[in-house]
């Protein structure tokens, strides 16, 4: 390519001083580009550019049967892979009016909560690293390793375990699944207070995080922000409470709401949710009923023609699956309303007026997973 002449860009006063953060940037957690317009250190406005990891999952879903597209939804929000699969299975089971065995409900809810703890742990590591506390990364990953070992023992893979099938589970959990989960809960109850001592209580951390990125409840609803990020501004949007599925209506747990609305409130919500998930698991782990691990399903699943809609609470917010079926074995149209897509675009209204360092803290507190945005 001939050496084209680069126009000398001289930054005048009125000309915006734009820097590109991403797509390769240490703290965008994935291929996402922020076009940030700066005035000195403070951010004037910010345009997120996405599409770097768009695989066309919705187009691929139209060519796969309902069992085959489970391994696609794994790879949407890879940190809450199990909840994505469960959303698709719930839609299919609703459409076919299949009654899934009690044992499957117990196991699915326990796996949901384990996945939520693992996802919050990785969020905590990355959030600490974004603010400069590099040691938090290793403490979080070390504790997360225990959960991944439990997953690896039962499903064979650590992160993307296409283990849930429409109608139940692919095969039964490993015999010592219960024992190891209880060990993990006992271990993590000792380690979680350490997270607070290392980061939450720290005066530098609190100054870096308090009072920045304020999001009111109205902006949260307007931009469709859901999950822990929205519960930080006192907007109760927990699908496990609104439209309970699995064992969530029979389990006693409370929805964590913080009124602060700033990055610190979102941080506290996620830490409290880890405690809450452990309580849920403890209520379920001891009385998993015996029984077979899947309902009787035909090998080729054909949903009766019509439209089906089901919502699930993933670690980052509300995932809604909308299926239009025309009766044959592959869905006619499948739409995933993913939490990160709406959580991302609120960042411009949160971050403008703050410094660059705050922009990194705000995008960390929204806990974005980029493949979930692009699908």
């Amino acid at each position, binding site marked *: 390519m001939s050496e084209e002449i680069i126009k000398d860009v001289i930054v005048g006063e009125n000309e915006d001083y734009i820097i590109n953060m991403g797509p390769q940037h240490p703290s965008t957690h994935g291929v996402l580009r922020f076009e940030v317009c700066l005035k000195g250190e403070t951010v004037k406005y910010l345009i997120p550019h996405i599409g770097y990891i768009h695989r066309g999952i919705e187009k691929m879903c139209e060519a*796969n049967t309902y*069992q*085959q*597209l*489970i*391994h*696609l939804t794994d790879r949407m929000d890879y940190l809450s892979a199990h909840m994505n699969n469960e959303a698709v299975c719930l839609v299919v089971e609703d459409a076919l009016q299949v009654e899934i065995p009690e044992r499957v409900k117990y196991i699915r809810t326990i796996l949901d909560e384990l996945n939520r703890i693992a996802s919050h742990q990785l969020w905590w590591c990355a959030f600490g690293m974004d603010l400069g506390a590099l*040691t938090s990364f290793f403490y979080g990953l*070390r504790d997360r*390793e225990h959960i991944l070992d439990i997953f*690896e*023992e*039962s*499903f*064979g*893979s650590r992160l*993307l375990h*296409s283990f849930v099938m429409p109608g139940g589970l*692919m*095969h039964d959990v*490993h015999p010592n699944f219960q024992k190891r989960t209880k060990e993990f809960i006992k271990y993590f109850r000792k380690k979680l207070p*350490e997270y607070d*001592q*290392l*980061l939450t*209580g*720290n*005066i*530098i951390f*609190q100054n870096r995080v308090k009072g920045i990125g304020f999001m009111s409840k109205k902006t949260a609803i307007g931009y469709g922000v859901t999950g822990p990020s929205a519960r930080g501004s006192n907007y109760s949007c927990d699908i496990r409470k609104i439209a309970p599925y699995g064992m969530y209506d029979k389990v006693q747990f409370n929805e964590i709401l913080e009124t602060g609305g700033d990055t610190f409130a979102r941080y506290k919500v996620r830490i409290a949710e880890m405690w809450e998930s452990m309580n849920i698991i403890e209520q379920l782990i001891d009385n998993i009923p015996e029984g077979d691990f899947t309902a009787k399903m035909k*090998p080729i699943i054909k949903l009766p023609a019509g439209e089906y809609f089901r919502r699930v609470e993933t670690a980052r917010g509300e995932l809604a699956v909308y299926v239009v079926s025309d009766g044959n074995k592959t869905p006619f149209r499948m739409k995933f309303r993913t939490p990160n897509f709406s959580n991302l675009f609120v960042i411009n209204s949160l971050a403008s007026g703050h410094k660059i360092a705050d922009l990194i803290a705000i995008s960390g507190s929204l806990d974005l997973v980029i493949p979930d945005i692009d699908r």
Partner: protein
Amino acid sequence: MNSIIEYFTDIFKGISSLCAGLRITGKYFISPGSIVTQQYPENRATLKMEERFKGEIIMPHDENNLHACTGCGICEMNCPNGSIEIITDRVANAEGKLERVIDKHIYHLSMCTFCGLCVKTCPSDALAFGQKFEHAVFDRNHLTKVLNQPGSKLRKEAK
């Protein structure tokens, strides 16, 4: 006056929170016993993967080179990524009738996403998950494997 008191309590609260953080890292500094890092290349001999670990798809053969694959092609249909190809041919069996026998069970490891549908839906349980996870090769076509070993035949149970 209370602003001065608040100024000093703010400093002392800050310092005490800093010391709490220092205590944690200090505790881990003096307790190397709690280090969990596995020295991978060195502990290769003792490293045992979980027996359900999805390393790759293999076709288990018993001692006298018999496998269970009848060449029906259900796994090929069920695979979402088209990473399995079945090549069958017709062989005259004992009674002289032409019968479909598996010739080559081609498995593209490069396209497989380990969703496990083939292993689950195989009617004669011919496929299983292997524990090998070191798949790095220098040449891409090494990733295309033929699962049934040469000269292996279908295991005939008394039906």
